[in-house]
């Protein structure tokens, strides 16, 4: 198995695998699954925030939010392209999403109920996403790693904007606004720390992904790192994180935290979260209602190439 050996050696050596290189089927499938899931998350993730574009409270915030959601569409685009280099078309991936075979990040199955949710998504959700994604910038598959570098740069800009929006409300706003921010934090905190996935001992695919250099850091390690960073930011912001067991552990040099309700996590993954059906329905509706547009564009493109064929 010379190909396999060469592949393993390159992985061990920390080289990038490129799209035209030989790779094991399972590696290819794992990557397609992960990259497309990531792309789907960007696309579905446009919905909860997009929900507030028409209601943004100032024109500046409207512009920032529009630009952010547009960036998420852009991330979806690079990621679909990266996955396409592995031989699966964007339409195939979208079909997998719409049929329910492919997943997207479960966090987007929670509703955005107030304007503060938009800021909190920037701060906590994008913050957790970056924590997850930074190691992927060193992932063994080149096109994915390169897409992630650009994604992470933009995400960290979004995170700062989200935090700044919250800070404005907390520092300069009214009591009603501060209540709104705290309420949003209360609702998003636990789902955010679930974004790192199940505990390491219940994460069956992690070992293989680590071996292949697709995953670089474990779920629990990333979660701890996120919590440690976020506690400090929450203090600066003046909000309380809704976990009474959250406290500094001098010995571990980390924050201890309360028990995560993994039943909720798995229930949402299983399709029973507050917005699972609506998110998927919104995507399917946009896709189905846009079918005639895509068909028209293809028909027109075909007509443009026909004369050339005839001339040939």
């Amino acid at each position, binding site marked *: 198995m010379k190909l396999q050996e060469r592949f393993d050696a390159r992985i061990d050596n920390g080289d990038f695998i490129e799209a035209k290189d030989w790779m094991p089927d399972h590696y290819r499938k794992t990557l397609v699954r992960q990259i497309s899931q990531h792309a789907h998350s960007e*696309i579905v993730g*446009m*919905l909860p925030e*997009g929900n507030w*574009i*028409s*209601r*943004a*409270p*100032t*024109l*500046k*915030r*409207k*512009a920032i939010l*529009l*630009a952010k*959601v*547009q960036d998420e*569409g*852009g991330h*979806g*685009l690079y990621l*679909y392209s990266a996955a396409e280099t592995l031989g699966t078309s964007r339409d195939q991936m979208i079909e997998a999403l719409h049929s329910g075979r492919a997943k997207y990040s479960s966090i987007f199955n929670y509703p955005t109920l107030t*304007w503060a949710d938009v800021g909190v998504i920037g701060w906590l959700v994008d913050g957790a996403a970056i924590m997850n994604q930074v190691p992927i910038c060193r992932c063994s598959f080149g096109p994915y790693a390169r897409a992630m570098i650009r994604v992470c740069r933009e995400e960290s800009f979004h995170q700062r904007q989200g935090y700044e*929006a919250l800070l*404005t*409300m907390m520092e*300069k*706003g*009214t009591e*009603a*606004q501060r209540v709104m921010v705290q309420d949003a934090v209360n609702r998003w905190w636990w789902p955010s720390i679930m974004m790192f996935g199940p505990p390491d001992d219940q994460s069956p695919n992690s070992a293989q992904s680590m071996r292949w250099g697709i995953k670089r850091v474990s779920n629990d390690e990333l979660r701890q790192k996120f919590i440690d960073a976020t506690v400090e930011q929450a203090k600066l912001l003046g909000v309380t994180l809704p976990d009474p067991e959250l406290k500094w552990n001098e010995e571990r040099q980390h924050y201890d935290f309360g028990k995560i309700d993994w039943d909720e996590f798995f229930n949402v993954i299983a399709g029973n979260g507050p917005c699972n059906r609506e998110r998927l329905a*919104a995507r399917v*509706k*946009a*896709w189905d*209602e*846009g*079918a*005639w*547009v*895509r*068909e*028209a*564009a293809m*028909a*027109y493109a075909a*007509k443009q190439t026909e004369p050339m064929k005839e001339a040939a």
Partner: protein
Amino acid sequence: MQASIRVTLTPAVQYLLRIGDTALVLGQRIAEWTGHAPQLEEDIALANMALDLVGQSRAVLTYAGAVESAGHDEDDFAFLRDERDYRNVTLVELPRGDFAFTVLRNAMMGTFFRHLWDALRSSSDPELAAIAGKAVKEARYHQQHAADWMVRLGHGTDESRRRLTQAMADLWHYSAELFASDAIDEAAHASGLGPRWGDLKDAWMRDMGEILTASGIAMPAESKFLSTGKSGVHSEHMGFILAEMQYLQRAYPGGVW
């Protein structure tokens, strides 16, 4: 603070509000596609256009506040103004419709803005001229993007052609308002602030004629219908746009965002 502001509606302020409000409301409508477009590239393109329009609106409303000199900033105008003081053309407030409707409206408005901004580059007011210098480039892109889609839809499938034709029947008659010059236009023309909108009609008709010809769509006859959003008499859609857009500012008096 959440009660509506009273705007001093001098001709110059009205002229500017017509521009700023038209950009804002069109941006609001186009932004509704974000996350719901027929393909991802269009989600991005439409969000980008909405962003350009919101940006143009911010610049013009801020400038209108300076001209009015009553201390109103862009957000006072956008979020604390009554419907009757909004001065956008009616065309931009119509619900977003299907993609053909949006593409046609964008072609009509992109073409209009392109010529308006082009003329405003020679405004006697250097600030407005500077805003126009940036905006005209954006409008050119909006026009081109919509025109490309017009051709694709006009020569795509039977359905796309049927939908584009329906959009023409629904939208075309709203174009008359764009060019119905009045005392506000005369004042802007006289002071050199900007063109009479009626003076943009020939250029608009020429461009739209080309786009329609390229799309294989006939230009309809003129009708006697004249919408009146520019003078603050809007369609019944406008109230719902504002209820949604202004809700937070209205419900959180004294808020800082």
